[in-house]
């Protein structure tokens, strides 16, 4: 296999800068990395693809010296890399950007970058030289960020640039990026990809860890797929296909759940000219018209920050409309009351599962009854029925295939996909008539996303109406019956999914095509 890679590198004309040979790492009985061999060429972008737990992060941690490999060797620029030393890795030109940033918020960009690059006991910093070097790097690699600003004033995308600059400042020529796009908005992802291309063109070699197929297809030169600790595929991106990669990742053909044709039933939720004045700095909603029927999925497309949060707040009862008429099952809604919304039969899958979806330090069994503990099923005379809680949790864990947890595990320690299953189990348990699903598959890997989608389809088949808010157009096209686009707090007229296509929706998301922007639309065309 090593020879195959060598020839692949030779074919692209790239000199090899990094070679992993036969890396094996065991944690007890678990083999996290099983004899993995990989090469990386100069100026090459290698996507390391795999589901959560496939061993991507372990492999990169070995490369960066956080873990010691049980077997195998690493060579950087032809020299053997001493194992288990991040310092040696940095000295050899390997830089790592973690998914969670390690920046000081009240310090300037420059401070964050130069920390630790000078001997501690020196009486003077050479700030002018440091500044020049940082600005050189920023200009060369297209990582524009003002060195004097405080990190707390930066956007997430800018913070990521600071992290990359930190690595480059230390002389990194091989950059490892751990799920770099997980925290970025779609626009930021676009400019980030442009930056990656620039960096590769300047001769940096990049390892890009991801589980998002479309990103990998868009940016990588070569893709390596890990599954259960083994390297199962390694080929140039030109030979890859979405389906092939998905199959390699999961180990079987992934059946993406298919929307069945259902005849919509009676209307459940109706908005007529609904408006919501946003607080200062927040997007207001204006003149929303939505009718959601039984057995229907109503997709809301749009770049996040265009009023999705306000719309979700309305449907979940956190806010009441300031204008227009909002009806749920025929009742007009005038007051904000999340509790009343629950009673009316609205189930909610919140956007940020860690912050508002679950209570991380509570156990799985507690999180499963957060919206029902007051009822007869789970309490009597004001005391919680522990046995009922436990039995409920065991049923749900089996029925929803929640892995890596039992009833008493702290929910915090679950993976994103399993946490989302806990939330769905809790929501569906209430037999909701209306489900608000806000970014239900964000950050989930292919298998988990498919499971969540299948659960939503099942609820729809049982008669629920679903409002699906998503930034992922492909997901919307796959799941929705009708799609409308939210832009600057206004909603376009919904179109049946059969008549919708990616291009038109994309343009509408950018503000072209909605009624009030018809002028711009004409300009653009």
């Amino acid at each position, binding site marked *: 296999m090593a020879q195959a890679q060598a020839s692949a590198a030779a074919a692209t004309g790239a000199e090899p800068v990094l070679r992993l040979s036969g890396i094996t790492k065991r944690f007890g009985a678990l083999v996290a990395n099983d004899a993995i061999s990989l090469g990386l060429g100069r100026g090459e972008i290698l996507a390391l693809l795999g589901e959560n737990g496939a061993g991507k992060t372990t492999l990169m941690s070995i490369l960066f010296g956080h873990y010691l490999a049980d077997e195998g060797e690493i060579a950087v620029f032809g020299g053997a890399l001493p194992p288990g030393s991040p310092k040696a890795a940095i000295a050899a030109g390997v830089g790592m950007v973690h998914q969670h940033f*390690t920046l*000081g918020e*009240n*310090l300037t960009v420059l*401070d964050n970058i130069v*920390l*630790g690059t000078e001997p501690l006991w020196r009486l003077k*910093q050479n700030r002018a030289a440091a500044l020049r070097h940082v600005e050189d790097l920023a200009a060369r690699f297209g990582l524009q960020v003002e060195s004097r600003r405080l990190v707390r004033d930066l956007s997430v995308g800018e913070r990521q640039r600071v992290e990359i600059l930190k690595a480059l400042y230390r002389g990194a020529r091989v950059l490892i990026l751990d799920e770099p796009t997980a925290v970025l908005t779609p626009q930021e992802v676009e400019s980030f990809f442009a930056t990656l291309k620039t960096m590769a063109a300047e001769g940096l070699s990049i390892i890009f860890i991801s589980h998002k197929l479309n990103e990998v297809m868009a940016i990588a030169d070569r893709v390596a797929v890990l599954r259960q600790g083994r390297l199962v595929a390694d080929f140039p991106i030109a030979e890859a296909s979405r389906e092939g990669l998905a199959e390699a990742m999961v180990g079987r053909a992934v059946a993406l759940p298919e929307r069945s044709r259902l005849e919509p039933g009676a209307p459940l939720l109706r908005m007529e000219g609904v408006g919501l004045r946003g607080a200062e700095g927040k997007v207001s909603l204006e003149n929303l018209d939505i009718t959601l029927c039984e057995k229907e999925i109503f997709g809301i497309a749009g770049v996040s920050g265009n009023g999705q949060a306000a719309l979700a707040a309305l449907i979940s009862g956190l806010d009441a409309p300031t204008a227009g008429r909002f009806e749920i099952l025929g009742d007009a809604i005038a007051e904000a009351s999340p509790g009343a919304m629950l009673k009316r039969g609205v189930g909610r899958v919140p956007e940020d599962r860690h912050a508002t979806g679950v209570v991380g330090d509570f156990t799985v069994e507690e999180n499963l009854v957060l919206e029902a503990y007051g009822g007869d099923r789970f309490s009597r005379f004001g005391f919680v029925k522990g046995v009922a809680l436990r039995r409920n949790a065991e049923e749900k864990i089996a029925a929803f295939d929640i892995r890596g947890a039992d009833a008493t595990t702290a929910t915090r320690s679950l993976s994103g996909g399993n946490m989302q299953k806990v939330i769905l189990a809790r929501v569906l348990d209430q037999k909701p008539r209306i489900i608000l699903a806000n970014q239900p598959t964000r950050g989930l890997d292919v298998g988990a996303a498919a499971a969540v989608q299948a659960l939503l389809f099942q609820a729809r088949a049982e008669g629920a109406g679903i409002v699906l808010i998503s930034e992922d157009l492909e997901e919307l096209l796959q799941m929705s019956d009708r799609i409308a686009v939210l832009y600057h707090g206004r909603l376009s007229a919904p179109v049946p999914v059969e008549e919708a296509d990616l291009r038109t929706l994309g343009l509408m998301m950018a503000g072209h095509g909605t009624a009030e922007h018809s002028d711009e639309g004409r300009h653009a065309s």
Partner: protein
Amino acid sequence: MDILEIFVSLGFWAALVRMATPLIFGTLGELICERAGVLNLGIEGIMTLGAMVAWMWVYQGGGLWSAVLVAAAFGALFGLLHSGFSVYLGVSQHVTGIGITLLASALSYFAFRMLLPDVTTPPKIDPFQPYPVPGLSELPFLGEVLFTQSPLTYLAFALVPLVAYGLYRTPLGLAVRMVGENPMAVEAQGIDVHRLRTGAVMLGSAFMAVGGAFLTISVFDAFYIGMINGRGWICVALVIFASWRPGKALLGALLFAAFEALQIRVQQSASAFIPYQFFLMMPYVLSILAMIVMSRRAAYPKALLVPFRKGER
């Protein structure tokens, strides 16, 4: 005496500078600790200890400057104790700090009583005398106010730019500021978070102890029970007032000292019709008001109060 008269009197301004001195030491010390992410509520006790130790050293025949060093050493020692609990063991910084204050104050009084069991009036020593700076002390007004002070006052004022330079212009200062913001970032650079924090707490505690020593071996010439009288707590508040910046810390110390000096003088002139307790209260009320105004946009060191344990996120 009318308020205007107070403001033009030399004595008021000289007293203000003198009264600000222990606050400057204490506030800078607390500021260094907090910048490293450790709240040091041991300050009140450490100042008491510094006052006692320095005075005792001189009383037993030691020199004044060596007394300052001895006080600093004892302060650093109690800083080490504080950091042992709050940094290495990760115990609540509030609880540890209060504990240090109780322990250090009680030990000071205990030692004082043990060494001088029979005295009723505290014995006196020869304290620092004002040192007129040659030349500068000849200046009208300023000469008397700023340049005819105790050497320790000059030291306090000199420490302000030194601490600022250290924090903002040296690699070590950058590491200290970062460890109070995000210890992970410091750890990632191969710098030992616990040692760095401990060093900062020890240095800060040494400053606090010298602030206490100033009272016994410069302003007064004896040690009294309860003589720190809440100055340590004021320093904790002044750090917030200063938004964790040394320059503003000096400003805050001067402002509070001004209220205090004013209070004493107004009390003498107007107490006929207003109860004197009102004037005692005034500096604190005014500090609260000043804090409300100044600390609106205060940017807390992000990792203040958060213990760091390796391998945890």
